[in-house]
Structure formats: C-alpha cells, structure tokens
C-alpha cells in the first residue's frame, strides 16, 4: 500500500515540474493572462496615469488595449491626449475587484455595439474633445439623430482605423448603407473600390450645412471641388447643371454611362418640350420621327452627339450654337 502511493507521487513529479516550467517560460504569459503576482501600480505603460489599468495585463486580439499607443490618442507629448479614465470613467468597481469575484465589473463607460452604456453618453466622451471644426454640425445631424455611436464607425485601440483609410472606408459605411453598396458595383461609378474616391470626399458623416451630409454647402459645390471644369459660370448655362448635378447624375453608380440616371435621349426628354425633334420617338434607325440626318437618335451619345457642351458653353462668337450647347 505504502509502496504504490510512493510510486504514484514519484510518477506525478516530472509532470508537475514540466507544467511549472512551461508556465514560467511561456512568452505569451504576460500578454494574455492576468499575472498571479500582486500587480504593480507605479509604472505607466502607454498613457499618463494608466499604471492602475495596465498593471493588469489583459490584452487580447478581440479587445486590444495597449495598441492605442500606436494611434494619435497615444501621443502623450500632446497635452490634449486623454487618459484611460478620461474616456472610460474612474471605474472604481472595475479596479477594486473583490476577492473571490472572477470577472471584474465593466468600466463605467464602455464603448461598442453591445455596450450597456447609452450611445449618448458614449458620444459625449468623444465630443468633449472632438467638437468644432469638422464636427461642428454633429448635434442634430442625421447620424446623431439616428443614435449612431462614434464607435459604430471608429476603432480607437488599433493602429489602423478602417474608416480613416480611403481603401477600407467604404466597407464601414456600407455596413449600413446597403443601397450604395450595390450602386458602386454598377458599370458606371466613381473609383471607390480602387481607393481613389472615398465616401468622406463628398460626405461629412459628422454633419454638414448642405443637403445629404455634403462636405460643402451644396451638391454642386461638392462636385465641382473635383470636377471644376463643370462649375461654370458659363456664357450659356444649362439650368439643371446650375441647379443640381444630381438632377441628371447619380454619383454612387448607374447602369447608364457617365453616372447618368437614364441615358439620353430619355433623360433629356424628361424635361425638354415635345416640339421639334426633341419630342420624337427615338430609335436606333432613321425610321422614326426622331432621327438626325437619317440616323437614329439613340446612337452613340444621342443628344450629346450634337449638344456636346451640355454642362454649359463659353462660345462667345456663335450665339446660335452656343445657346444650344452645340459648341
């Protein structure tokens, strides 16, 4: 009896030694699991005063903590940089976890999709610093009115915030804006998927004075920031161009060329009076009332085969042709 117990104990010994050695020597030990030793609360790791937080080294891929140092929120030389408790609250209950309690209560302010903290309270934390300038129209804006949290779009504790990168921004926006996700896959579109145009080039998601969260005060001003040759004013102006580019164009994507909502002549016939050749039934051949020199009026660029300067003409000499945007 005594001998078998001795053998069992000796048998367990190497297993115990190996287990202890692996635990001590594990390189991931400090990064992934709380230390069994009493935490040191004296050394800041990332932000000022974060010693009390980072003394409990709990970092996972799903909940990154220390990598905020890689971001602009981690530049301690900037006096505006917040602290952990500045955003997450003093969180006494989280810090002073009672003995015997396995999971610490959440901090006072928690961000994220499933956070118990109300969206308004989450956003107030960010607005403490991020107010004015590009964010001056946040209050009452569309996203604010729909209870969109800052962290619905932004990620702070990671080096790469997808919404602040042109190449990945649209994926964040299209999480909600499904219609636009479909539209940018249409044949005629802006180069959004190539990373040349981002949603934020036209829209200020934090609010704006113009319609549809435009970055500028009107659709036309926004479009002409890149398409300045269409801005005008021209000697001969085309009224829908002057009024609103989106009367004819859908900037997210269309099946008709040049981001037009409908192809010519059907687009033009939505406005233009049914007199002369304008109101004829267009066809691909010359066998209809709407043909131009015997050719069907839907061929090639249709109305724009002749009316090439459709956005406006500066022709100073030929008034007859300039007025109808033919040159």
């Amino acid at each position, binding site marked *: 009896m005594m001998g078998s117990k*001795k053998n069992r*104990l000796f048998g367990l*010994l190497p297993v*115990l*030694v190996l287990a*202890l*050695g692996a635990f*001590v*020597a*594990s*390189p*991931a*030990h*400090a*990064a992934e699991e709380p230390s069994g030793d009493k935490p040191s609360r004296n050394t800041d*790791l*990332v932000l000022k005063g974060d010693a009390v937080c980072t003394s409990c080294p709990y*970092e996972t891929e799903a909940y*990154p903590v*220390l*990598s905020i*140092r*890689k971001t*602009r929120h*981690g*530049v*301690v*030389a*900037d*006096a*505006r*940089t917040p602290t952990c408790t500045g955003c997450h609250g003093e969180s006494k209950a989280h810090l002073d976890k009672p003995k015997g309690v396995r999971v610490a209560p959440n901090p006072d302010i928690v961000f994220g999709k499933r956070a118990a903290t109300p969206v308004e309270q989450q956003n107030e934390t960010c607005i403490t610093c991020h107010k*004015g*300038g*590009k964010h001056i129209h946040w209050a009452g804006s569309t996203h604010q009115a729909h209870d969109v949290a800052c962290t619905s779009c932004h990620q702070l504790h990671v*080096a790469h915030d997808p919404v602040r990168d042109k*190449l990945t921004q649209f994926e964040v926006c299209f999480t909600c804006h499904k219609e636009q996700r479909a539209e940018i896959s249409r*044949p005629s579109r802006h*180069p959004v998927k*190539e*990373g*040349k145009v981002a949603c934020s080039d036209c829209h200020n998601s934090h609010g704006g004075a113009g319609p549809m969260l435009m970055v500028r005060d009107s659709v036309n001003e926004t479009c002409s920031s*890149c398409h*300045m*040759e269409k801005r005008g004013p021209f000697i001969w102006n085309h009224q829908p161009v002057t009024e609103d580019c989106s009367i004819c164009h859908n900037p997210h994507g269309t099946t008709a060329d040049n981001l037009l909502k409908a192809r010519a002549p059907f687009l033009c016939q939505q406005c233009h009076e049914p007199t002369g050749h304008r109101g004829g039934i267009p066809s691909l051949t010359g066998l209809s009332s709407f043909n131009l020199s015997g050719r069907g009026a839907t061929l090639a660029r249709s109305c724009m085969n002749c009316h090439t300067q459709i956005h406006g003409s500066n022709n100073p000499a030929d008034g007859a042709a300039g007025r109808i945007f033919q040159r």
Partner: protein
Amino acid sequence: MKKMLAQVRMIRLTAIVSALRAAFGPVHAEEAAQAVERLTKPESTVQFGAGYVDQDNQRFGQYTGLREAGVYGIADLDLVRRLGEAGTELRLTGRNLGLAHGEARFEHRRQGDWGYFIEFGQAPDYSPYTVNTRLTGIGGTSQTVIGASSGQDVQLKTVRKTATLGFDKLLPAGFDVQVRSATRTRTGRGCSVRAHWGASIS
C-alpha cells in the same frame, strides 16, 4: 514517516521550481517587454508583390490600368517614425506604386502643434469602349474627317494627376489654421488643366 516523505518531496519540488525561475525569469521579463513594445510601437511595413492578369478586360482595368493581360509589379509602403518624446512623427506612405493609379504621401507633424504634408496621386479613367471613327486630331485643336471607308480604333482615356501641399497649425483657444494648395491636372482625349488652392481657418 509519511509526513517526512511529503516534506522532502515538497522541498525538492520547490527547489526545482526555484531553479527554473532563476533560469527563465530574466528571459521571461525580456520577452514581456518585447511584447509590450510590439503592441505599443508604431510599425513600418513595406510590401512588394506581383500580379498576373490572364485576359484583356476593359472594365477590370478601368480605374487601375490593369486592362491588358500580363504581369504587373506592385508595392505598398507605410514607413512611420516617432522622434523622441516631443510627439513628432514622420510618415511616408505609398499605395499601388508601379500601377497607373499609384499615390504617395509624406507627412511630418508634431501632434497638437503643427504639421505639413505633400501628396501625389494619379487616377486613370479608361473608357470601356473602343471607338471606331473617321475623325482624326482628337484631343487637339484641329480635327478632320478622313475619307476612308472605315475608321480607325481610338482608345479614349483621361488621367487625373493631383498634387497637394498642406499645412496645419494649432492656435490657442481651440482654433486651428489649415492651408491647402492642390493642383489637379486632367489630360487625355480633350485635355483641360486646372489648378485651385484654398485656405481655411477654423
């Protein structure tokens, strides 16, 4: 006897553990420090690659230039360096270098104080159609219609090149100055050259 045996084994175990800690303890602390540095220090990346397009496709390469079958080289880089404790950062980024829609940006800023950047980019726009026309002189100031029975194939495209210079300065009481100067040039079949600059104080 049983108690003595248990005590002897406990001493041996403790000795073994102590020996292990002495041997691996400093290594463990060093690795922990390296892990923290890896998590907190901004990382620079350089990526090289090659892609192969197996067929000509007008739509596929409409905005990237990858219209013809062949091998294409591509590089991305993101070099970042924080200088000292002053919060000064240098960053050089390049995207799609080697392709027709490449772009590059250099930025130097002291967060909370000032910053400047210079940025270059180009964006092609190839028409997905191949136009057959008897018109010659497209893109120029003088066009003629040739008398041949059939026209010639013309590839229409425009290339938009942008160069932007920007400067930011944070002022007291929450104000800041942002100055931007951008030159956008669009060339192609029917070229136009435009430049605009802007400044804002907010």
